[in-house]
Structure formats: structure tokens, C-alpha cells
């Protein structure tokens, strides 16, 4: 097990390095940030001055080495588009909002998908099963921003129950973006739960429990559901990372001041240090959660040996 964990950590570090190089290169392909961030009538002298201050006049490998060096020491640098504000400060300000939104979306996903997944498995091929499939299909096929805008118009504009956007109305603020973000994953989790439940429902010990006269509710929720959870549980771990990193569009639509919204601004402004920092952070989240799920999975499932 220790060897497995060691190898997975090494793989994770290598993956981060590769991602950092890709992001670094792609960000620079998109164009010159000086052309965006300085006023149109900035003089060539000012342009050169800024380019020099930001290190853009250095060879590309020097820029990369400096970026990696700073990153290792925890110095993400300054945000160009925010007048030199430290990026760690920007991230520290925005990250809690993203975590809260992703966490709520995760709860939404789980609380909708798991019960429906169980119910459609129990009532296989019934009208309930088909209805569940439709719900899943809509969640999977409709883009989250489209779902978000529809929710916004219905619940904020027409009904007036919830705020359209922002994060200053307490719990009410998070409902629409959380549902819009979480609904996308309902389909996958629901179908995984369904197939896992069908497999468990067909096992001998379940048949035995029913023959012995155990109440159906107990059979399903105590004996089947817990055993069927391992596959959706693994996936739910992964979508935690997806939700953290995938809130970019939803945060923009709902003016939710999180990392995703910051990422969009940074991309628009070609603010390389911010783009790089956020993408690396997202990648680190993703890799860490994958790692944690792998380790937990190996620990929980005794049939897995490395």
C-alpha cells in the first residue's frame, strides 16, 4: 500500500509539472497581455517598461523557470490586471466562495441522484424509471449555463423567490447557482446508482433476505443501498473535483465571486500569472482528489491489491 501511495504521489507531481508547462505555453499563445492591459494610447516606452517589469522581455524558458521557482516557494506573483495585487490574496478571497458553491452543488447532486437512482432501480422498466431517465437526460444534455439562466428567469424574475445573482442574500444566493451546477452530475450518479443497485438486487443474499420476510424497505436501504454505494461513491469523489473546477461558467452567469469568475477575467485580460495559478490550483485539486479516492478505494475494497 505504501508503495502504491508513493507511486501515485510521484505521478501526481509529474502530472502537475506537465500541466504547468502546457498552461504556461497555451497562455502565451493567446496573445500579448500588454496589448490588452495598457491603454490604447500608451507610449512604446511605457509598453517596454511594463513588459520588462512583468518579465515578458525575458526568454521563454527563463520566464518558465521563474514561474516554477516562485510557485514552489508559494509565491504566485502579482496579478497584472488588478494593479499588482498578490495572487495569493486574490485566491484567498475567492476560494472560499468556490468551495461553498461546489460543496452545495455536491450535496444537490447527491441528494437528487442517489434516491432517484435507487428508486428507478427498484421500479425498473416502470413509468418511474422512464421519468428518472428523462430527468437524467435533461441534466446531462443541457449546458449548465442554460439550466442556470432558465432557473434564474423562473425563480428570480418571474416568481421572485430567489435573487438572480450575487452572494449577498445568504443561503438564498447559493440555491440557483448550486442547483445549476449540481444538476449536471445528477444523471451520471443516478445511472451509476441504478446499475449498481440492480446488480446488488440480483444477488443471492438479497433474495435470501426477502425469503426470510425482511421488510422491503429494510432490504433496499439497509442491505442493498449500502453495498451498491461503492461505485457512485467513487464517482462522487471525482465530481467533487469537477464541481470545484467546473464552476467557471456558473460563477460568471450568477456573478458568484469565486475562482471560476476570476479565471474568466484573467483569461480575458491575458493575466498569465493569475491564469497559471488558478489552473494549477484546479489541477492540484483534481489530482489530489483523484489520489485520495484511489487510496480510499484501495483501502475500502480489500480485493484491490498493489
Amino acid at each position, binding site marked *: 500500500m505504501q508503495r502504491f501511495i508513493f507511486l501515485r504521489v510521484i505521478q501526481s507531481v509529474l502530472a502537475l509539472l506537465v500541466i504547468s508547462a502546457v498552461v504556461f505555453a497555451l497562455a502565451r499563445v493567446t496573445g500579448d497581455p500588454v496589448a490588452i492591459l495598457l491603454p490604447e494610447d500608451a507610449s512604446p516606452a511605457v509598453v517596454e517598461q511594463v513588459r520588462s517589469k512583468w518579465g515578458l522581455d525575458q526568454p521563454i524558458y527563463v520566464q518558465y523557470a521563474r514561474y516554477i521557482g516562485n510557485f514552489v516557494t508559494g509565491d504566485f506573483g502579482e496579478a497584472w490586471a488588478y494593479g499588482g495585487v498578490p495572487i495569493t490574496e486574490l485566491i484567498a478571497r475567492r476560494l472560499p466562495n468556490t468551495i461553498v458553491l461546489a460543496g452545495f452543488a455536491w450535496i444537490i447532486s447527491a441528494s437528487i441522484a442517489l434516491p432517484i437512482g435507487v428508486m428507478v432501480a427498484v421500479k425498473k422498466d416502470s413509468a418511474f424509471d422512464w421519468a428518472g431517465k428523462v430527468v437524467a437526460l435533461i441534466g446531462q444534455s443541457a449546458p449548465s449555463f442554460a439550466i442556470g439562466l432558465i432557473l434564474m428567469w423562473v425563480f428570480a424574475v418571474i416568481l421572485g423567490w430567489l435573487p438572480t445573482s*450575487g452572494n449577498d442574500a445568504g443561503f438564498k444566493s447559493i440555491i440557483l447557482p448550486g442547483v445549476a451546477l449540481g444538476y449536471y452530475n445528477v444523471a451520471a450518479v443516478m445511472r451509476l446508482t441504478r446499475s449498481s443497485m440492480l446488480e446488488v438486487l440480483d444477488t443471492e443474499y438479497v433474495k435470501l433476505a426477502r425469503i426470510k420476510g425482511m421488510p422491503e424497505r429494510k432490504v433496499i436501504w439497509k442491505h442493498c443501498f449500502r453495498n451498491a454505494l461503492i461505485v457512485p461513491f467513487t464517482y462522487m469523489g471525482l465530481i467533487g473535483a469537477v464541481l470545484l473546477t467546473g464552476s467557471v461558467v456558473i460563477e460568471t452567469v450568477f456573478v458568484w465571486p469565486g475562482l471560476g469568475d476570476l479565471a474568466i477575467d484573467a483569461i480575458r485580460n491575458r493575466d498569465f500569472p493569475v491564469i497559471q495559478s488558478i489552473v494549477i490550483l484546479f489541477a492540484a485539486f483534481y489530482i489530489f482528489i483523484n489520489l485520495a479516492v484511489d487510496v480510499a478505494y484501495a483501502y475500502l475494497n480489500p480485493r484491490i491489491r498493489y
Partner: protein
Amino acid sequence: MIIRYASKRNISVDNDMDFQYLPPYDSNGFDRLGDTGRRIKPTSQAAQRWESMSRGLALRTGIVGLLALAVTAAMACGAPAEQEPATSAPAAAQQQLPAATQAPAAQAPEQPTATTALAQPAGMSDRAAGGAAPTVAPAATAVPETTAGEPVQADLRVAITPPYAENLLGWRVGGTNQGILQPMQEALFQRDYQTWEAKPMLAESWSVSPDGKEWTFKLRENVPFHHEGDTFGVSDFVFSFQLWSHAEAKTGFGDFWHQILGPEGERQTWTADELGTAPTVTEVSDSEMVWNMNRPELWIPFYASEATTDPLIYSLDYWQTSGEEAYAASPVGTGPWQHVSYEQGAKLEYERAFDDHWRVNPDFETLTFFFAEEDLTRVAMLRAGEADIAEIPRELQGEIVNAGYAITQSTLPAFMVWIGIGGQYLEDRRDANDPNTNVLVRRAMNHAMDRDALNEAFFDNKMELMANTGWHPTDPSFDPAWEIPAYDPDLSRQLLQEAGYADGSGPSIEFMAGKLVGVPELTEVAVPMISWLEAVGFTVDAQIGEFQPIRTRYKAREMNSVLWTHRTGFWPAGRNMRVYFVSPSLAGAVYMYEDPYTEDLFGKWQNSVDEEERLNLMKDAGQYMYEQNATIPLGFLFAEFGMNPNVVAEYSVNNSYFGGMKGHEYTKVVRQ
């Protein structure tokens, strides 16, 4: 040929058109519709390229369309919950008004007192010499009533697109990003948004020496900052100038301030001891100063006005006692609004600063800007009653008006849009084989464009068409004899033949179009223009997408054989000349047109202190560029905002890029 515009993206051509003058596809580059309206695949290269490039956009548009259908269906179920009419009778009456469009509000009633203003620099707007009336008048209007009584609401909430860069120290982000700070900070001068003339703000009166180098200012006395015991004085101006021209400042006019008042050499940083004093500024008293400038300059009332966004006044005392970090976290100014809170990327809150501000006391107690990137989010905020004023794109304005909201328009244009003709460089970058350097080709381009059709299809006829890029009729150097180039494809073909291009084998050019804030239609208008160019014989390589690659190329002076879409704010001709139409040697910035003759005129204009001579020089430059067809002028666009007539009785949008951010101290609340 008769072209019928069914909608912005659905343009059909009558069957009886003369195909002799048409390309295989319709002359707008869009789908050609037959009798049945059946879609026919575009056959032109440009149209096919556009179709390919715009697939993603079309997908998004389709989704938005579906959304609109869904929303429309949902709305049929009930009225907006938050849009119940206000309790007052007038407000209730307004709610019933269909498609109300508010008038460009009258000039704010509380104006600064008259001064001993001396210099009205040549080249600045002057209505007396302003020339022709706008080609297109602002939309019809219905003026709402402001009744006496209690305000229906204490808070004014404005939904805007976020600035490109956010920092509450404006000089660190520069340009239009400083718009969100203008409720809080003031400048020496302000613009009159009816006449575009310079008016006093913190400078009470001023005079200039005959050589244009010595300026004397009497500053307004006892103007307090939002910082206890701190009033505006000469040292605050000097400190502010040091920030505008600081080595790390991103201000667009930082170089200008450094050149006229700064020390020799490169822009610099200052030590704490150096702040607040400068050898070029003599402090006669705390409220009187004399500038001994490094070079003559008559346009100080323009450069030192809030219209240019940069010259906002900072408090030296607050900086010294609190430090930069505290200043950035809780900034102060002398404006009628003071900072309350700020959440980056989300909102910025102000409150009324004084009971008796020297200039104006706002009608509302608080002012909050909400930063919403998505157009539909801002529309939703307005309709849900979470915003009282919102930036609404032109294509969604109809829906807002139909729902009982008003659209208010700036008093003067906010944007100027045109097509740059690249490659017109001085000898060092000029390519003799570049077709763009041939005036006949440029004339052919101009006559290939159907501006009326563009205006109708994309701008709802709200664009004031322009005859000569950079010159608005309110500019004294504007010539009313200038004519908007007529749409005449036959003439275009003839001109190309005269230029040496045989029929049907015209020049090969690139056409770049990119989206810019305020005029998102720029990429869309490119499509028919490309088709019109191809229709008269040009071979066009279209590149439609982001603006950033365009900027990178023109900054590098690599625009040979390229046409590109461009927009700027509403500026005097002299400023437009400097930024767009001169070479790097004259501190140009875009290098769209470089010609030894205009370079000479502009050089003389810059150094002249004779107002009449300056006016004539600018007229000559304008006339020459008009004759040379230096660009493909399109027109001027007004800033437009949606507003809730139940809350906002009057909002005077100024002409700047950031109309939604400025002037809210003059915004009037509905009273009941």
C-alpha cells in the same frame, strides 16, 4: 437592387434584383432566401469562412434563442413578481406605458458656478462652430415626471459589465477601468455633456500665458475629502499628478503628464519626501498654483478633465497617514459619493458623502455597482428589481421596452466605429505593392459599403453616420461639406479598374474583426462588409474573432493589406489624430494613417499656441484625410441603458465609454 432586412441575421434579397451586380450569394454575405424563405448555402468564400468560424457563436445564439422561447413561455404564466407598480399614481401610470424610451436627460440642474474660464482650446467642441446636425437623431422619447415627495427608494443599484481590470487605486489600472471610481473622485475640470465644453470642477478659475507654457489655477477652497479634517489643496494636485505619471501607472495620459510637468528622462517613482511637491508647480497658496510646463499645451482643460478618466484627485494626507494599502482598501476622494465596501468581481458600494456637497447632493442615499458579465444576467437583474439601471445590449433592448422599462440614451455619442485601412505607413513600413496605399482602392472600398443597410440591420438606425473618421459635427474643425460615401458598387468596380485591377480580379486583402466592449456588433457587421467588398472584386481573407490579435498587429505596425474594425470613445479630432493617425515619432498609438503631409500639420498643431492657427491646421488635416479616403468611416453610437421608470425618474447618461458609472449624483429618484 433592393435589399430587405428581415432581421439582423436574416437578410433577404428581392427576386427582381439585377444579378449582373450580384455575387452568387446575396450581397450581404448571409443566407439568401428565395420565395419560400428556404435557406441556401452561402457560396462565397467569405460567407463559407464566416459560417465555419461562427459555428460556435451560432450554437450559443441558438441556445440563447431556445432560452428565450422557454422564458417567453414561462413568462406567459405570470407577470414579473418584483415589477408591481409603485404605490404612487404616477409610477403606476408609467408602468402602463408601452415601449417608453426616456429622453436624453436634460443637463443636471446643479451646475458649477461660472468662472473666469479663458482658454477654449482650438479643436475642442464648440457648438457655435459645430456644423451640421446629426445624420440620425436620437430615438423618440417620453420624458418621465419627477414628482415631489418621499423617494420611492433610497438605494440606486446599477448593473454594469465589469471593468477589464479592478483596483480602487485607479492609476494602477488606468483607462476606462477608473470609471467605477468617478462617483467618489473628482478632477480639476469636467465636460459639459450637452456641449462638450470644459467646465470647472475642482479648478475654480484658470488662465494661460500667451506662450501656452504657464498656467495659473485658482482651486476651489474648503473642498473636503472623505477623510476627516482633510481638504483639497495644491499638494493634493501635485501628488495626484505624480501618481498619474508614476512609472507603474497604467494611465493612458501618463506620458502626457510626465512630458508637461515631470522631470527629464523616463517616468519615475517618488520617495515619500518627494510627494506633493514638484519643481514645475509653484504653490502660491494652498488654493492657487502656477504650472511652468516643459512645453506649451493649450488643451489642459481637456487633459485635466474627468472625461479622459485619468486625472482623478487623490489625498496626499490620507496616503501619508494610512499608506497605499489602506488607501487601496478604503479609498477617498472629494466626490459626492464615498466608498463603503467593495467585493472584487461582484460589487462596489458607495453612500452619499456629505449633507452639503459643494457641487451636488445625490437624490439617492447609496449607489451600488453590480458587475455582471453576462448580458442576460443584467437583464434579469433589471427585471427582477435587483437593479434600477442596467447596461442592456441593443439586441435585448426591445424586450426591456416591451416589459415597461425605459431605455435612456447619452446626450452625445459614446462610441465612434469605423474600419481602419492598414498599411498606410511612412516609408519605413510602407509596402508599395499594398493595395491599401492606393487612394483609388480606398475610394472603391468606401463606395462598396452600404452604411444605411448596416445601420438598419445592426443598429436599429441609431447610428449617426460619419463622413470622416475622427470628426464629429460638434468639432469646430468639422466641415459640413463632407459627405458620407454613397453606396455605389458600380463606382467601386470602376475605381478598381482605374487602379489597374481588371474586372473581377481585384486586390487581395485581409479583413480582421474583433469584439470590443460597447459595440459587440463589430464582428457581425464585418460579414456583409466582406461580402460587399467581394461583390465588387476584392478577394478577402476574413478573420473574425477576438480583438486582441488585431491590437498586437497594429501596435507592431504590421497591418499591410489589412482592413480592421475599430471603435473608440467620443473624443475631439485632435485627440483622434494623435492616437490613430500619426506615426510613432509623433507619439501615435495605432498608426492607422501616416502621411508626411498630415504629420507636418499635426506637428505644427501640437506646437502652436495660436488658437486660430490650430483650428485651421486641424481643418486642413481633416480635409486631406477626407480626400484621401484614409479610412472607411461608419458612424457614432450612443450609450444606452435600461432603467426602471418606477425608481429612476431621470438619468443623464454622459457620452463616455462608462456612462453607466458616471453622473449618478445627478440621477433623480421617483418621488411619491
